[in-house]
């Protein structure tokens, strides 16, 4: 029974995001399954931000207080919007290969959900940080003064708060069922991945690459098996959603897309500190686009990000949070570059973690550089994945902690943030190769 309630709560989070997207028409003419995949991340962020606000206003986290704003929006959606317009459209799959791929993808989803529900939390960072906060906030009934000093964390609170939301609706702490939140990110990442890709490269190739994404062992581990309960897969989801929405905004130039993108980018910075750098990167690109194309009235679309970013930075500054400043040293260590490259190569060839994700990504980069596969805005995915990778390299070169141990300890998790974008980029390059490869391989391609 607890498991069923857990699944309902996870679906509720996706529904909250969907209600916001549909009420404000942030994604018009978008398939339901893509909207609900975005809805999961948006709902996750909004639920966390809402709980954070309630705690700061001194309002108790009663179930009703947690759900009322979303219920009001849902009622508005039912009354004021024509829900008939929301169509659950299942894409047509013609070939036998596609059907086989769908069955395998669904099996992997089932497997990850099963794994998430099989064991209680086992990941170190889960009980040392992320779900510790969920537990602490639930027991305390709010964010008590000084408690963040006790848990020794200057990380954003959204992930912890959504865990508390889950426990509050469940009526108990259950660090097994709460891992469904990680499985939710695994599924929603696949949802955004497939439904955004299929219009660019066709259903067959999109299904193939969605399978390759889902079959990546590190994603399976963080989605449900042993490493669930951390925030890295969530960040991977947000990096992908941000990048896909950015490419959509560049194409459709709609302010509604820009607002949704900025909500996502704002939430990205509230998932993990690593997300802040990515957020700033996206905002810089957006500013450049707006100024270069003289679309100054679109500046208003950046407001959601600015509010979320400033609110959190000011909270960090003025609250009793610990400052983990020892992380950054005063000097740069270029001699670490060889260690970083060695570790990156070690991860690249680590088939156990990644299958051939990174080798294929490197080859896709080379292919793209030679001028093949340059379609469907692949450059955005390349630019953002490489820029963020360089950001991580930069951080390693200024960090104060034990370099080799530190890099080895975190590199595989940092690559989770980038893996969905990297696989998406590889898929776009492969999708753009039609005509560049012998006819033998044409079986992969179909009319888009």
């Amino acid at each position: 029974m607890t498991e069923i309630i857990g699944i309902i709560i996870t679906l509720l989070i996706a529904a909250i995001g969907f209600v916001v997207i549909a009420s404000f028409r942030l994604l018009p003419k978008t398939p339901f399954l893509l909207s609900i995949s975005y809805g999961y991340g948006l709902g996750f962020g909004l639920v966390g931000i809402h709980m954070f606000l309630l705690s700061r206003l001194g309002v108790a986290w009663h179930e009703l207080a947690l759900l009322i704003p979303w219920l009001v929006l849902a009622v508005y959606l039912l009354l004021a919007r024509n829900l008939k317009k929301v169509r659950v459209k299942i894409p047509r799959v013609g070939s036998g290969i596609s059907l086989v791929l769908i069955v395998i993808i669904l099996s992997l989803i089932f497997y990850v959900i099963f794994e998430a529900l099989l064991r209680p939390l086992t990941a170190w960072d889960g009980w040392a940080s992320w779900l510790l906060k969920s537990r602490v906030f639930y027991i305390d009934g709010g964010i008590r003064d000084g408690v963040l000093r006790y848990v020794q964390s200057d990380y954003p609170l959204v992930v912890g708060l959504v865990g508390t939301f889950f426990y509050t609706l469940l009526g108990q702490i259950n660090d097994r069922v709460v891992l469904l939140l990680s499985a939710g990110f695994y599924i929603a990442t696949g949802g955004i991945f497939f439904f955004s890709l299929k219009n660019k490269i066709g259903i067959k190739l999109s299904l193939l690459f969605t399978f390759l994404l889902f079959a990546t062992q590190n994603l399976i581990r963080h989605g449900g098996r042993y490493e669930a309960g951390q925030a890295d897969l969530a960040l991977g989801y947000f990096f992908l959603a941000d990048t896909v929405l950015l490419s959509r905004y560049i194409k459709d130039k709609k302010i509604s897309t820009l607002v949704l993108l900025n909500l996502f980018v704002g939430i990205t910075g509230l998932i993990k500190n690593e997300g802040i750098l990515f957020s700033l990167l996206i905002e810089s690109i957006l500013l450049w686009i707006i100024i270069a194309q003289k679309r100054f009235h679109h500046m208003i679309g950046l407001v959601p990000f600015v509010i979320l970013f400033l609110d959190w930075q000011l909270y960090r500054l003025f609250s009793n949070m610990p400052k983990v400043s020892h992380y950054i040293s005063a000097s740069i260590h270029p001699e670490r570059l060889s260690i970083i490259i060695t570790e990156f190569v070690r991860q690249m060839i680590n088939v156990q973690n990644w299958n051939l994700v990174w080798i294929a990504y490197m080859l896709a980069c080379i292919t793209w550089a030679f001028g093949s596969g340059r379609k469907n805005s692949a450059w955005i995915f390349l630019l953002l994945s490489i820029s963020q990778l360089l950001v991580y390299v930069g951080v390693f070169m200024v960090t104060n902690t034990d370099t080799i141990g530190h890099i080895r300890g975190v590199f595989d998790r940092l690559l989770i943030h980038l893996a969905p974008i990297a696989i998406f980029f590889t898929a776009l390059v492969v999708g753009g190769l039609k005509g560049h490869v012998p006819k033998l391989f044409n079986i992969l391609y179909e009319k888009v």
Partner: protein
Amino acid sequence: MPFQSTKSLQKISAIALIILIGLWTLLAGIRTINNLSKLITEEKAWMGLDDEEKRRKFFGKQYSIIEDIKRTTKGKGSVLIVAADGMPYYMARYYLYPQRIYWARAFVPDKAYAYVVFTDKTYALYQPKDYIRVSDDTAQIYKRI
């Protein structure tokens, strides 16, 4: 000529990428079968256990220490864990909250804790002053007199 060589490099890299995707698919397929087979092999050992039994099975002695501290202190009083690595501390801080847990690599009697826990028995070669031993099951637990 340079144009032609670029063209052939384009073709080579494109074919190499397609072949690599084929190998990747094969590998992913094999690993998926391996993963799914775990449902009836490896994971069978976890089914039928309750959550506490699963924690004991996964964490082993480390979780027994947490249970020992919980049983001995009954959730009351601050606890200093003396251990070389942070794992027992982080686990205790998680599982025993709201009880206050602290960690030191060596025992220095600079602050009064209700309990001091030595997770490795070699640490407690002497009796900490003002404390009496209350448990010696998985770790040595001392209570302040």
